[in-house]
């Protein structure tokens, strides 16, 4: 079995699209809240296979995109400190802050190191005891267990030069905030890899209280089409349940071991999201017990005053209110080579996906 190619079969995709076209009667607006889904939808041209009744909107699912400008400014301020090395996932270095970015700071001589995991940052810190290594903890429940493991390992090794600046986030508060704000969402295509960790029960309040079908989807084209079909079946029968399409990876209870390490290292906190503002209990910060690894506490810096880029509508794109091609900067002043907003920087950003693959007529 090939776990990628077997789920990209053209004939299967066509049959699933036929079912959707045949069964969909009620207009439905489906939001995907994972950058991986945004990219896969555009890459495989899925919107063009769907009937007029089904519209897809992208939500705040790209961790790089939702990282608030204050977080970038904080990271920039840390990068300017002597002896500090910033260790980060690659995409983040190009996200513009108020007046600078990590990429610009690197060009000016700051130490910014791209890593593939939090553990790599810790290994680098152990090998360089004279430096203070700050790992930028971004992402949802997919990346927070990895950061937590690195912090636990750092504590075991009594490391005193490894720190985390955490902007880790949890997904459900943003999903309910968008509905509360009045964005038209009839159903959620739920993030597959977040759900591998959390399980599918985190979406129960959205299905129950808000009466929105929630389907946890895989990332290949036939996965996504089957998930849309499952949503259509729920909509047409008046149901609102949580279902798992991505059953080869997601269990209802999730990965308990990963949930335990998150609980061990982090506590819930309010956090800023680009476009959505400050959402209660939507972030994760290091627990008191691990505060000696918290860069925000251990390396005090002066952070510049916040200045948003004029004309950029990333916030509205992240909320699903506007599409990238409604932005006057899109494809002109804002391109992947010269991004103005975060949604154009990340390879999973909505603007980047639309730029690369077109908008597939939807």
């Amino acid at each position: 079995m090939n776990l990628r190619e077997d789920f990209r079969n053209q004939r299967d995709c066509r049959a699933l699209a036929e079912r959707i076209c045949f069964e969909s009667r009620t207009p439905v607006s489906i939001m995907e809240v994972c950058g991986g889904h945004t990219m896969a939808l555009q890459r495989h041209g899925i919107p063009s296979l769907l009937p007029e009744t089904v519209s897809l909107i992208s939500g705040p699912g790209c961790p790089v995109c939702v990282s608030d400008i204050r977080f970038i400014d904080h990271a920039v301020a840390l990068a300017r400190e002597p002896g500090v090395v910033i260790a980060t996932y690659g995409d983040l270095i190009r996200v513009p802050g108020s007046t600078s970015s990590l990429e610009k700071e690197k060009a000016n001589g700051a130490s910014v190191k791209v890593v593939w995991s939090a553990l790599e940052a810790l290994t680098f810190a152990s090998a360089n005891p004279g430096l203070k290594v700050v790992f930028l903890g971004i992402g949802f429940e997919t990346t927070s267990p990895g950061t937590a493991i690195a912090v636990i390992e750092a504590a075991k090794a009594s490391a005193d030069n490894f720190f985390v600046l955490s902007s880790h986030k949890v997904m459900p508060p943003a999903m309910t905030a968008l509905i509360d704000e009045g964005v038209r969402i009839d159903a959620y295509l739920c993030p597959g890899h977040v759900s591998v960790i959390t399980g599918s029960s985190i979406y129960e309040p959205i299905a129950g209280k808000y009466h929105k079908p929630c389907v946890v989807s895989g990332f290949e084209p036939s996965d996504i089409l089957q998930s849309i079909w499952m949503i259509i079946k729920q909509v047409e029968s008046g149901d609102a349940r949580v279902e798992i399409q991505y059953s080869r990876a997601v269990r209802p209870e999730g990965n308990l071991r990963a949930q335990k390490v998150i609980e061990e290292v982090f506590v819930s906190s309010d956090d800023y999201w680009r476009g959505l503002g400050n959402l209660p209990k939507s972030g994760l910060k290091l627990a008191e017990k691990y505060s000696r690894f918290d860069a925000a506490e251990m390396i005090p810096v002066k952070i510049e005053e916040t200045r948003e880029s004029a004309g950029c509508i990333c916030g509205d794109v992240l909320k699903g209110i506007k599409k990238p091609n409604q932005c006057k900067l899109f494809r002109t002043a804002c391109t992947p080579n010269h991004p103005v907003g975060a949604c154009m920087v990340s390879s999973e950003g909505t603007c980047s996906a639309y730029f690369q693959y077109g908008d597939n007529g939807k």
Partner: protein
Amino acid sequence: MCLGIPGKVVWIDGQRAGVDFGDVVCEAGTHLVEELKIGDFVLVHSGYILEKMDLAEAEQTLALFKQLSESSGEQ
């Protein structure tokens, strides 16, 4: 950064494992999964194995697709 990739475990050494993605073998942390064995299919994300993949579930999903595309061809 968000890409989760399925692959096959080809070696295990303490809390590290080699995962074969078909064209390349990468090292990933095994901290988040229990009872990992060589030959297991796993999902790797930002340097860690997030979960073991359930092949029986994958087969069931593919069987449903097959049934669907076959009946679609008959129409």
